[in-house]
């Protein structure tokens, strides 16, 4: 009985369907790829999944707060080219990479500030406002690095792929990022992000400084996006203004597959992590299933729709049955 209640409680969590989808996708993947559970395959997979996971965490924080960020992709691009340009000549001198990191960090928080300011203080609709800022970040990235180039010191690239058995640098960064979110959730800001996303007017009436909460949610989101930008940069080892473009919509899909409501206020950030892994695995799956290349995009789209439908339909049913009970 107790176990039954526990199970029931778990099944009510908004990220529950994403866990089911994740298990299914892993099972399929393992069936198609013989050494799927080998340590170095796991590490390689995690390495490639890391950027989307981190960017999706950022997108999740923003969406939970009732916002949306269509500029995460070009934020990644700008961070990438800044680092590739500033670290180009660093070589083995460890101190020489500091300006690159600092500049990337300032850029990330600055971009989060601008997005948060337009959404929170100017009250512009985030879908259009961040669409506009995404063009600005892309434009800046192209100004800094018009054609692919720049470089990242080899020792940094190697350091990023450091691993000891199952403990790898990407895993450490993901766990650290998640702990940052847990820390925020333990503070009033964390609860206010949910409150503003759930019902902004009510939050305001309760004395919550809704503008500032929105500003902070975008800045915090951009911080996670920046970590994603680091991950991509260390993998690519060079700069390219187009590098981040595909991540914008994929991160939103990951968030929704992870059981977070697009209208904000409900869901858990861990769901976005599951969502990101699912979407990456789908691409693996298509590759290992030997689907002809001209069918790959089609299949990917169909599978994502399926996952999305499962997650969304489940949430709808849950909220209905809760309302009746």
């Amino acid at each position: 009985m107790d176990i039954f209640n526990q199970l029931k409680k778990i099944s009510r969590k908004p990220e529950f369907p994403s866990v089911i989808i994740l298990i299914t996708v892993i099972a399929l993947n393992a069936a198609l790829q013989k050494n799927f559970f080998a340590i170095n395959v796991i590490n390689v997979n995690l390495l490639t999944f890391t950027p989307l996971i981190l960017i999706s965490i950022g997108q999740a924080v923003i969406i939970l707060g009732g916002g949306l960020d269509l500029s995460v992709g070009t934020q990644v691009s700008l961070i990438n080219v800044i680092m590739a340009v500033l670290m180009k000549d660093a070589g083995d001198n460890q101190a020489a990479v500091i300006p690159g990191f600092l500049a990337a960090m300032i850029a990330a928080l600055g971009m989060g500030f601008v997005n948060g300011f337009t959404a929170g203080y100017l009250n512009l609709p985030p879908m259009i406002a961040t669409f506009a800022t995404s063009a600005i970040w892309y434009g800046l990235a192209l100004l800094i690095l018009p054609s692919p180039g720049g470089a990242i010191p080899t020792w940094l690239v190697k350091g990023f792929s450091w691993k000891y058995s199952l403990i790898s640098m990407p895993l450490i960064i993901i766990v650290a990022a998640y702990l940052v979110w847990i820390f925020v959730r333990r503070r009033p800001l964390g609860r206010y992000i949910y409150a503003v996303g759930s019902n902004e007017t009510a939050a305001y009436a309760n004395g919550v400084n809704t503008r500032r909460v929105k500003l902070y949610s975008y800045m915090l989101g951009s911080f996670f996006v920046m970590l994603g930008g680091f991950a991509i940069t260390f993998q690519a080892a060079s700069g390219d203004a187009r590098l981040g473009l595909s991540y914008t919509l994929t991160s939103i899909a990951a968030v929704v597959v992870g059981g977070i409501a697009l209208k904000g206020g409900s869901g858990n950030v861990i769901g976005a992590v599951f969502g990101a892994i699912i979407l990456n695995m789908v691409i693996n799956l298509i590759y290992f299933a030997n689907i002809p290349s001209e069918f790959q995009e089609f299949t990917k789209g169909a599978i994502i729709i399926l996952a999305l439908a499962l997650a969304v339909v489940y949430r709808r049913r849950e909220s209905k049955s809760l309302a009746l009970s």
Partner: protein
Amino acid sequence: MENNGSVILETKSIKKAFGGVKALVDGSFSCKQGEIVGLLGANGSGKTTFSKIIMGLLHSDAGEIYIDGQPVRFRSPLDAMRKGIVMVHQQLSLIPDLTVWENINIGHEPRTKSGALDDDTARKRAAEVINRLAPGLSLDRVVKTLLPSEQQLVEIAKALSKGGKLLILDEPTAALEQTQVNRLFEIMRELKSQGTTIIFISHRLGEVLEICDYVVVFRNGANVGTVRFEKDGRDENRIVSLITGKEESGQQNGAKDRIRSDEVSLEVKRLSAGMLKEISFAAHRGEIIGIGGLQGQGQEDLLLVLAGMIHVEKGELRVNGKPVKFHHPADAIRHGVVLVPGDRQKEGLFLNHSLFMNVIYARFGLRGEWLIPFKRLREEVKRVVSTLSIRTESIETEMQNLSGGNQQKVVVGKWLPLNPAVLLLSDPAKGVDVQAKRELYELIRDLARRGTSVILYASDNEELVSHCDRIFVLYEGQIVEELAGVEITEDNLVTASLRATVKQST
């Protein structure tokens, strides 16, 4: 006894207009420490606007506010809270996705020394008020899953836990049952003895007479008078005439002046859906049928099934003798079965569209029009506005700029041009003032006289008793008793509702 406390709040000629509609013309008011003041007035008289301005949620166009004799200017609710002003909002200010205890603490969360959330203290604080106000309500429920009455209690609990020196309660009892109201009043009296000032806004005169020291009446956005109970006595008629601006004539029961027709317009046979079980009845042309019983026994579900919003699982529906199946609300509308939903803001209106559009949306369920005949419809809508004496600048005014009572008239009035066979009403007078309520029921009776069958659910028993030809008492989704003719009294209705629970539990 005259209260000698110091003046806590004083306002001088506050003014506020929304898009040309003047909500507040002369908001002048004052109250002293430890008083319970009733703030009364028809819908649209400016009570809610007035309290939102005091709370810092709206900014006045003109006028002054003094707290403890000091002039203040609130830019946000936070400013008002810092001065010890706390409000229970009529439209509730709860965060739907957070739990009961999180909601009670929102905006003033206890923290640990390091600045993190101190959830243990927060839960304790929430448990204290909930145990007094709503014993048995779990702190961990997510607010959007609660019943309306439970949500209302959480909203009140939240305000109480903030412990301000001036508490504004805007219609706190509209969704509550008698025992819950009693518990609230007990707490209010205790707060009063501790020196808290309370402004109590309500349409229920009986409650105001019971709990308040005196009442202030607003009409058309201005303070039109004060009735001090010690000096002027608890004179109900005097208050009502202040509210309406007319002399009060006695209450009339409209049910008696109609003759029941033999024609049946709606027949329900052994209908089951959701929590409803084996419901059977026939509604005659021109009959007003009441749906009564304790709260949440399936009354609202029954209306939703008849309106095509919940699907029938078993059973049969006939409209004017023809068997029908509703797959969609549009099917119901085409057969002349129309619903006035309970939550007008959410389900009944498009607040940011014009009054004109809101009235003509009603006909979009009908088939057969290629182009919308705007010119003809404008005339039609103007007729509806004048028939119902809806107060508005023009028919192009946005819905949200109309007062609550006028909004409610639109929700009902939009069906008038369609001459519905069956009108379903879900608590139509909830939060509507005395005068608007009377006009509303006049309108409903008028429709019945012209042959519409009316099925009415009301949370207020008095409304059912004074307007219905027959009343069905529901319990756990079944009709357990039917009252008709002389049996229809408030006593009988209450007894029947309660008796059902006894019968079922033995």
